[in-house]
């Protein structure tokens, strides 16, 4: 197995062109590490992206927050610009439990893994994020986050490199709600990310992301429509939650939770998220049954 440590995106693209599907890119390494050491995967080269500084910056320009794909959950949790302008993402990062994992796990890795329970991906869905993806010959292109997350099979092709995520900013209200069985290294059983644009006390526009509620992270489009134009109160929250659970969620049973339980969680957490956006202050995430 060969090992490369490019310092620039262009150098990484040369390596992608050369190795294609025989290479794996190293960002946080939380998945690649066990995969490589357990053997069995046909990997000829590891391309360590961590030294590419241009992929690790977080900067606000105008009404957009630019976050390098290598930004870690620990950085997202702490970075003043993320906390101020994209608190949904900071909350989702903080909900990722184990500090050791937060040190390693990256925003890009969360997207590229295509995990249906990804905390960061579901926050990006609600934020209407844009992914900057470069390929060896075609250069850079912009993709809506939901386009990237709904791909089958999940993730990027071997010739694509996710370099940056752009988050449009505005006077939004956010709420992030999550249920896990314990805090450490625990993907959500279900999580709900909600972003509302208010006009007075009416919801002018809502974007709802669901994790753990389908084969991929999804938008709850029917529930978004139901919530738009409404004044937030208990019955609106309950109705939105019911629609998210019945019309948008298509959960499957697995070893961690049954489809019935996941659907019930979608309803409970969506209701909490809507009520959370009923007031101007940003809510803190609800996380499972406690830590230690």
């Amino acid at each position: 197995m060969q090992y490369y440590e490019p310092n620039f995106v262009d150098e990484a693209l040369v390596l992608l062109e050369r190795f294609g599907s025989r290479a794996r890119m190293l960002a946080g390494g939380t998945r690649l590490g066990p995969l490589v050491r357990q053997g069995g995967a046909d990997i000829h080269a590891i391309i360590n992206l961590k030294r590419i500084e241009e992929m690790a910056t977080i900067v606000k320009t105008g009404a957009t927050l630019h976050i390098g794909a290598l930004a870690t959950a620990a950085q997202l949790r702490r970075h003043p610009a993320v906390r101020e302008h994209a608190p949904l993402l900071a909350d989702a990062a903080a909900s990722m439990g184990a500090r050791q994992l937060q040190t390693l796990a990256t925003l890009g890795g969360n997207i590229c893994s295509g995990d249906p329970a990804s905390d960061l991906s579901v926050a990006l869905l609600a934020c209407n994020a844009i992914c900057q993806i470069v390929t060896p010959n075609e250069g850079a292109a912009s993709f809506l986050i939901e386009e990237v997350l709904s791909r089958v099979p999940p993730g990027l092709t071997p010739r694509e490199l996710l370099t940056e995520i752009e988050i449009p900013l505005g006077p939004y209200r956010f709420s992030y709600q999550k249920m896990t069985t314990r805090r450490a290294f625990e993907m959500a059983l279900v999580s709900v990310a909600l972003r509302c644009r208010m006009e007075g006390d009416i919801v002018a526009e809502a974007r709802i992301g669901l994790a753990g509620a389908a084969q991929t992270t999804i938008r709850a489009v029917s529930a978004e429509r139901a919530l738009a134009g409404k004044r937030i109160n208990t019955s609106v929250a309950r109705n939105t939650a019911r629609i998210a659970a019945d019309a948008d969620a298509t959960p499957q049973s697995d070893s961690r939770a049954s489809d019935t339980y996941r659907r019930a969680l979608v309803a409970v957490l969506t209701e909490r998220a809507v009520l959370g956006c009923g007031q101007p202050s940003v809510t803190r995430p609800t996380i499972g049954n406690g830590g230690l």
Partner: protein
Amino acid sequence: MQSIRLAVNGQPHDVMVKPEESLLQLIRHKLGLKGTKEGCSTGYCGACTVLVDGAPVNSCLFFAVDADRREITTIEGLAADGDALHPLQRAFVDAGGLQCGFCTPGVIMSAAALLAENPSPTESDVRSSLSGNICRCTGYQSIVNAVLTAAEELRAQGRAGERTGSTARLRSRA
């Protein structure tokens, strides 16, 4: 094989590593530092926690090649030179913050990272920061007590927020 140079507990090391090798394997098998434990090897249990440039990581997930030009602190490097235990270690002994001891090095390294960032943590801060370390013996209460006691002791000694181990020592030399 790749040639890397890293500092472990303040000591520079030049070693050859395979691309697939973990930092945990390097620390235990090449450097012979057996304080860091191998538990699950998948990032769940936290027994292998060390500090990389001052931040806690699961060394089983971290690639050894990626430790090139980085500063690593293991449990062996926590106390200052000499025989005296670090206040965290002392507090774990005094509070009985362990039973079998297998998880203890990882727990203490996570706690060290917490206290460097937050010298006056609440009980909830401690529980949250240690949530990536699984202990199957203690029920955690004595661990939490030990960390809170150590925080108090470090503050009393005027060492609140002190970065521990090799990072602090290398930086002070620079």
